[in-house]
């Protein structure tokens, strides 16, 4: 268990800046996800912490010790690779014992630790198998056991669940959380799967083009995205962009390229300023009549209805702007059909001001 601190970490490949001075502190015993699209620098961050790559600037501290110049094999870091990287010529037992043998532990100690960790990942009885005789989920657990058994200061996981099919992935997420909680280890998890990040992590770090955009607990980042990138990368969002024409405590009138739109929100921006607002599809309630008492609501015509089992998704044409609203299929039938006139209602606190610069 350890804390990890990154200070102004920079990495360049030739002209290309992959990491642009990121700083981050990972508290002891937490699971932190690095989330972002490919090329955002999340894997590079992981590889720098592991020591596979050298930083061009900035420092990496593990337990307040600067590790930039410590070689990979001396860093005591557990890594679970995307491909698992199990040694194909060794049995499950030998794979897991590999790191302990490198540490020149006694045979007795190795035996008992390998046994314990295989029990933790529920792979007792598979000791003599070769990796290719295991299923994807089992291989993943061997990789995890191999990384955990050396009792690393920190565990790094590189897209470690992405190779599994959806059902197995969800099972493994729960399993992973159980194993990590049981071992109490500090873990850093790289993923591009937002659902995985939301369900697994204590904290989410959203990255984009080599910088950290937002850090927070999963519900904080989801419920209060800072800008358009976070709002659209983590979940779905509807955006309203324009100049504020009128405002009071709970509603503003936004002059957009699709005409004037009344938005239920309380905004710190003043009349005359340009602004970008977002609202999550599931926060929008569709009504046949305007239920908003304080001011009129945006109205539109239902263009498409998409049925997705537990929810239905409505695409609504509001004077040319496409807005998506989702509702639970609690009553077992569609609320509205294509062509219906609907009013879009929501609680003012769900309509969020984005930090993006908006041109007038």
């Amino acid at each position, binding site marked *: 268990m350890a804390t990890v601190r990154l200070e102004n970490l920079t990495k360049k490949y030739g002209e290309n800046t992959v990491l642009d001075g990121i700083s981050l502190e990972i508290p002891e015993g937490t699971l932190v996800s690095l989330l972002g699209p490919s090329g955002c620098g999340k894997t590079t961050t992981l590889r720098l912490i*592991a*020591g*596979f790559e050298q930083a061009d600037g900035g420092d990496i501290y593990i337990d307040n010790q600067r590790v930039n110049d410590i*070689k*990979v*094999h*001396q*860093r*005591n*870091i*557990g*890594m679970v*690779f*995307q*491909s698992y*990287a*199990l*040694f*194909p*010529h060794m049995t499950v037992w030998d794979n897991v014992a*590999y*790191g302990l043998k*490198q*540490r020149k532990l006694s045979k007795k100690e190795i035996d008992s630790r390998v046994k314990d960790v295989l029990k933790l990942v529920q792979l007792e009885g598979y000791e003599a198998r070769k990796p290719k005789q295991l299923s994807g989920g089992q291989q993943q657990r061997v990789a995890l056991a*191999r*990384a955990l058994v*050396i009792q690393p200061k920190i565990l790094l996981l590189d897209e470690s669940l992405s190779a599994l099919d959806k059902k197995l992935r969800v099972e493994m997420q729960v399993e992973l959380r159980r194993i990590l909680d049981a071992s109490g280890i500090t873990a850093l998890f790289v993923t591009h799967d937002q659902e995985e990040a939301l369900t697994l992590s204590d904290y989410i770090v959203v990255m984009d083009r080599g910088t950290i955009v937002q850090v927070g607990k999963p519900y904080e980042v989801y419920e209060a995205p800072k800008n358009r990138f976070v709002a659209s990368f983590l979940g779905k969002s509807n955006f309203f962009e324009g100049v504020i024409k009128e405002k009071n405590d709970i509603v503003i009138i936004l002059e957009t390229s699709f005409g004037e739109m009344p938005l239920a929100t309380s905004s710190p921006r003043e009349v005359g300023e340009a602004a970008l607002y977002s609202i999550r599809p599931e926060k929008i309630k569709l009504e046949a009549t305007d239920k908003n008492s304080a001011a009129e609501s945006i109205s539109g015509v239902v263009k498409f209805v998409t049925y997705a089992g537990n929810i239905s998704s409505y695409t609504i044409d509001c004077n040319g702007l496409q807005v998506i609203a989702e509702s639970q299929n609690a009553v077992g039938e569609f609320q509205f059909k294509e062509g219906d006139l609907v009013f879009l209602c929501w609680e003012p606190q769900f309509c969020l001001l984005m930090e993006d610069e908006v041109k007038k």
Partner: protein
Amino acid sequence: MKSKKQWLTAPGLLVLLVFAVAPLFIMLYYSFLSDSGAGFTLDNYKVFFQKSFYLSLTWSTIKNSIYVTLISLIIAYPLAYIMAKKLKGIKNIILILIIIPFFTNQLVRVYSWLIFLQDGGIFDAFLNSVSIIEGSLSLLYTRKAVIIGLVHAFFPYMVITIYLALEKVDNALLEASSSLGATKLETFRRITLPLSRPGILSGILLVFVPCLGTFVEPRILGGVNGTVIGTVIEDQFFEIYGWNFGASIAFILLAMVLISMNVLNYLGREK
């Protein structure tokens, strides 16, 4: 449909039967013929095993092949390793340079070595000019010259098989090994080397086996010191016209080849 497609193998099979399998059986037939024309005999085989000359010849042929194989391995492994794991763009150029001996005519290649190695030849001149030696190394017409020529001819096979095996070793495995606390040397010993073993074994097979039967390099570069089984077989057929005895030696050679292939297969089997 399936049976129709199977007929497509007929021309290939026919060629093999007529030009490879049938001659082999004719040779086998010859190897049991008596020189005096008195029917079948085992004498051709007995002579080989009774005369110490042929046994020591066999041993020196095997020794030659072992030397060539070992030297090829020692040269080829680091080269293949660097190409597979350290180089990017330039490795294709190196690969082409390695393959060039395949494209050159065997005689051209061997006679170049003749010019290169002869007394006062280019090699001697070079060593003299940088004052490493004085006079001549007198390499030509020795076993060393034969081995040099054979290494040049066969080590590309070794490089390519090892290179292909190493190329398949996922770099993540090496990273995993070092993240688990292994030094570079340990990673090489316990991950890279075992995983490249199939490449090493097929390289050994591809160098050792043809070396056993070769006769061009030994004849031209070795002269009288270059006598090996291959040259003896050639002499039997083209100089002495001892076809029956020549055929029997050829089959003994074939047996040696099959035995060494089986040994290598045994070593290379999956544990």
